[in-house]
Structures are given as structure tokens and as C-alpha cells.
């Protein structure tokens, strides 16, 4: 499948001699819902702005939907939901979307029709004529999402779409994002530091850290190389029990008030119960979980104090 976004050695310095925001980022981002994951300051917004032509890279190239990032025709095919507020407070969503739709090239009538449709799609149908200054954070996020969709783009860049939202609002926005891909077949690049958002909505992920790519690929491939974890909560000496299990050749980590044991077969349970009986420890809870993106993310950070590309499979 052709890559939606291709970058080659993308580098960006904001100040000569300073820390690079991006360094040598080479990525092939497939079509679909893709997460751009990283801590604050990892370079996510810089990456997006270079792809959109809002920033010039110091070195390297970027191609989006088969076109150079600086081509004007590309900007008709992409939408951008920025992290900043970016909304004119005295305009209504309807006025804003018609204006931006027309600037994108939509004839007036089409811009009006699509503005109505998109605002209903994002759940602002009843508020579309109210000035934006009176909107809540969640409503403003929806307006930003709507303006990114009004001109029917093929690819939408969403920068922290759930920023500042309450749990219910976040849930609704994430569902909306999933619907945009599934119903409307619009590709999405979701930039966020929230792992759960990516896990819930995305099929693939690019993980950035300090301006470099830590990992990239489909989630199922990235997580396939890691074993499940068995979480155990006990009543007793947690650290002592962990050492016993380690002596019995289990791979154990202490996570707060729980133990996380890598599952490599049913013998894990046999050893667990045997050692619990020997040590007089009460097992209160056992739960086996598939490897989550959070665990992948933390593991990549722990294994890569100086980030470099990591193969998807860790075990042979």
C-alpha cells in the first residue's frame, strides 16, 4: 500500500546551534488512522507543520499524498485541526466554515451546504449560528475539526484533538474520529501524547522522542513481538515474593502495588502458586493482559535512552 506521508531525513532547527526539533526523521506513514505519538516537545507539531508546508525544514524532504509538501494543490486535499484555539471569536461556526470553505475553492453554494452538513456531523448543528466566543472547550474542538473537513480533504492532521476536554467529550471526539475514517474514508494523522487515544482510534503509529523516530508501524505488528503480562496482587512481602519468582526463572517487574510477570506459558501459574504456598503469601488477584501501547511506549523509552529505530520483534 502506498504511503500517505513519506519523509526522508527530515530535520528542523529553530535556532542555529540549538537543539533540533526534528533530526533525521525518515518515516513511511501508511493510509488509514495513524497515531503520531510522543511526549511534549517530541517534535509532533513541527512534523505536522512541515508536512503542511507551514514550516520549512532545515534539511530533508516530505511528501504527502504523493506531492511535495510545498505544493499549493496539496493544501486542497488536506485538512488541519491545530492544537491552538485558532478561532475568530466573533464569527459563528457557519460563517467561519463558509469563509474557509470558499478559500479552499468551494463555490459559495457548495460551501454553505457543506458547512451545514459538517457542523451537523460534528454535533454542532443547533449551535452553528452562535458566535464562537461563547463556546465551551469541547465545542471549540468540534468547530476546529469541522473546519478541517469542510472542503472534503483526503487526509486530516489532528493535533491534540482531545486537549482540555472532559472524559465524556473526549470519548465523543474519539468516536467521531473513528467514524470519519470508517464512514467517510478520510485518512487521519492523530498527533497526541495520550496513548489511550491512539490505542482506541489508530491502526498504525509513529512514536517520536526528542525529534527522532523511536518506532513506527502497524500496532498489531509492534505489539506482536511482546509477550502478554500477568498482573498479580498479593497480601504479603511484595519485593520478597518478586525475588522468589525471579529465582524461579520468571521475568518479574514491580509496578506499584502489583507484580507484572511476562507470560511465556502455563508454567507461570504453576510457579506462581507453588512459590505463594512456600512463602505463605496470599494471592488476591491474577489477571493476564495483552501487551498495551503504554507498555510498548515505556519499554521503548527504557531501552532507548538515546533513541534509534527499534525492530518490531524483541524475541526471536
Amino acid at each position, binding site marked *: 500500500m502506498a504511503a500517505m506521508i513519506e519523509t526522508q531525513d527530515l530535520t528542523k532547527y529553530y535556532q542555529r546551534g540549538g537543539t533540533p526539533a526534528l533530526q533525521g526523521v525518515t518515516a513511511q506513514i501508511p493510509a488509514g488512522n495513524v497515531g503520531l505519538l510522543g511526549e511534549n516537545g517530541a517534535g509532533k507539531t513541527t512534523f505536522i507543520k512541515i508536512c503542511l508546508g507551514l514550516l520549512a525544514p532545515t534539511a530533508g524532504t516530505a511528501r504527502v499524498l504523493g506531492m511535495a509538501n510545498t505544493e499549493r494543490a496539496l493544501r486542497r486535499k488536506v485538512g488541519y485541526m491545530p492544537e491552538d484555539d485558532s*478561532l475568530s471569536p466573533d464569527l459563528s461556526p457557519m460563517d467561519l466554515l463558509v469563509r474557509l470553505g470558499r478559500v479552499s*475553492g468551494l463555490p459559495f453554494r457548495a460551501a454553505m451546504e457543506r458547512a451545514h452538513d459538517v457542523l451537523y456531523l460534528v454535533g454542532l448543528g443547533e449551535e452553528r449560528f452562535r458566535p464562537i466566543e461563547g463556546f465551551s472547550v469541547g465545542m471549540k474542538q468540534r468547530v476546529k475539526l469541522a473546519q478541517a473537513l469542510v472542503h*472534503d480533504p483526503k487526509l486530516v492532521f489532528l493535533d491534540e484533538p482531545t486537549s482540555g476536554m472532559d472524559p465524556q467529550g473526549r470519548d465523543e471526539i474519539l468516536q467521531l474520529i473513528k467514524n470519519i475514517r470508517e464512514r467517510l474514508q478520510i485518512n487521519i494523522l492523530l498527533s497526541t501524547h495520550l496513548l489511550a487515544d491512539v490505542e482506541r482510534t489508530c491502526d498504525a503509529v509513529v512514536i517520536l522522542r526528542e525529534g527522532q523516530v523511536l518506532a513506527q508501524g502497524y500496532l498489531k505488528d509492534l505489539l506482536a513481538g511482546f509477550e502478554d503480562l500477568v498482573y498479580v496482587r498479593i497480601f504479603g512481602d511484595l519485593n520478597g515474593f518478586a525475588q522468589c519468582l525471579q529465582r524461579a526463572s520468571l521475568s518479574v517487574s514491580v509496578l506499584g502495588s502489583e507484580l507484572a510477570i511476562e507470560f511465556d506459558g502455563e508454567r507461570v501459574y504453576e510457579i506462581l502458586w507453588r512459590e505463594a504456598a512456600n512463602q505463605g503469601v496470599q494471592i488476591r488477584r491474577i489477571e493476564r493482559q495483552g501487551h498495551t501501547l503504554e507498555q510498548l511506549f515505556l519499554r521503548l523509552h527504557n531501552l532507548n535512552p538515546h533513541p534509534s529505530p527499534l525492530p518490531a520483534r524483541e524475541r526471536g
Partner: protein
Amino acid sequence: MQAPKGVIYDQGYRRYEGAYRGRGYAIWSLFSADFKRALGIKKGLWYRVFLWIFFLIITVQTVFVFFFDFAAELGSPTPATFGQPHSFLFDLMSVILLFLSAMVAPDLLSNDRKSKALQLYLVRPIELYDYLLAKAGAIFGFLMLVALVPQLGLFVAKTFTSEDAVQYIANHARDLGALTLSSGLYAFFYTVFAMALSSLTTQRSQATGAIIALPFFLGLGAALLLILTQNQYVQLLDLDSLPAGLKNALVGVSYGQQNVQITLGDRSFSFESLDWPIYLLAYGAVVAFSLSVVLFSYAKERP
């Protein structure tokens, strides 16, 4: 059971199958939207109140000039300093044009930068220059309208009150060109000046204050320097004198005498108008500097 009838008209969000217009259409759409905003359409109550107050003042000025000129034609004694009525009306209106530019330019420019809305435009298929051109066009169009319509109204009023309307038009048809050009000179000057100051700040109130205050203090300084030095060229510091000097060359002076003499106590000072090429040079210099300020302050928005 009957088959359901009817047609679904609202199908919700659909993919767009039509054609996209070009860059020229995008600039035009941005211009027309901002031109409507300048006229107060869908703006707040206070914006429209101030706008109509200014329109009322200009209307009163136009009526005043017409009746003053009409009275002079009937033979009533008038101050010797009163001269060409259209020129006089420009002199009265110039302050209003300054205030209107101070109202409109920050609203169209500073707001977008303050709210960081500019990036929403630059991810569309237009360039930064297109955006600035549309904004300038909207401000210029608005000020041009405000400057020209009263002049045309005065022209029409004088036509209908003349002894022979047809003859009046025949004799003064060329004046319409001079009025249009003079209105354009004023509108363009205040457009670029107001854009320059608006581009320096994201705070609308700061830009408005600067646009009003700077010409005032420069004019005051010019007058003081003129009195102190008697160097006529310092009057070029009075920004309003630049379009006024060109207007005088096109339309005629609004004063009966080219030069004005003022007596303060036992001292007298004379203020002489300069030749129009000097005003043109100064006008061009201010416009070029203002445009440079706009382009420089927006330079960081360009990739």
C-alpha cells in the same frame, strides 16, 4: 403493504464531487468576506454604532460644504479662506478616514494573529501575499467608498442646483476623475498606514490607539518645528498633508490663498504649500515604508 414513498433531501455529509475554484476566487472570497465585515455586517452592536456615527458626521460635513458653497454662489459673504468645495470636503473628511482605518484595520488583521487563525488560512491553497492582498483590498475598498460617495453626492447636488445641469456636467466631467483619484490616494494612504501599525501588534486596542495617536503627535510636532525653524519641508511630517498636497494638485486647494499667514502677538508665520512632486515623493516614501513594515512583520508567518 405499500412501498415507502418520498425522496430523502438531506443526506448528511457526503463527499464533494464538484470542481474547486482557483486562487483568484479564494482571494476574492476572502476580500468580499472582509469587506462585508468592514461595513459592519454581522459585527457587534458597538462597531455598528461607531460606524454609523462616523457616517453621520461625514453626511453632515457634506451637507455643510454644499450649503456653504451654495450660499457663496448666491453671493453671500464667505470667509476668504474658503475655496474649492470638493477639496474642502476632503480636508474635513480626512480625520474621519483616519478614525475609520483605525477601526477596520486592527479588526481585520490583529484579530487573526491574536487568535492564531492565520494558520487556518495558510493551510488552504493561498499564499501569505494573497491573504494580505485580500485584507488590503477590503480596507481600501471600504475607505474608498467612504471617501468617494460623499464627493459624488456633492457633485450631484451641485449639478442639480446649477443653472444648467447639462452644462455643469459638461464643464466638470473631468472633475469626476480627479475626485476618484484623490479618494483613492487618501484611501490607499490610510490603508497601508493602518495595516503597518496593525501588523506590529496582536492587540486591537494598541493598534487603534497607535493609528490615531501617531499622526496627531507628528502633526503637532510638524507645526511646532515649522514655527521654530520656518523650514517649510518639516510640514511633511504631518502625515495628512501628504495625500492633501496631492489632492490640492488634482482638485484644487480648499483655501482661497495658496499660502497661509498666521499672526501670534507681534510675530507672524507663513505656511507655504510645497510643489506636488515633493508631496508625491513623501507620499511614496511613507507608503513604501509602511508596506515594508507589513511584509517584515508577517515574514515569520511564511515557511
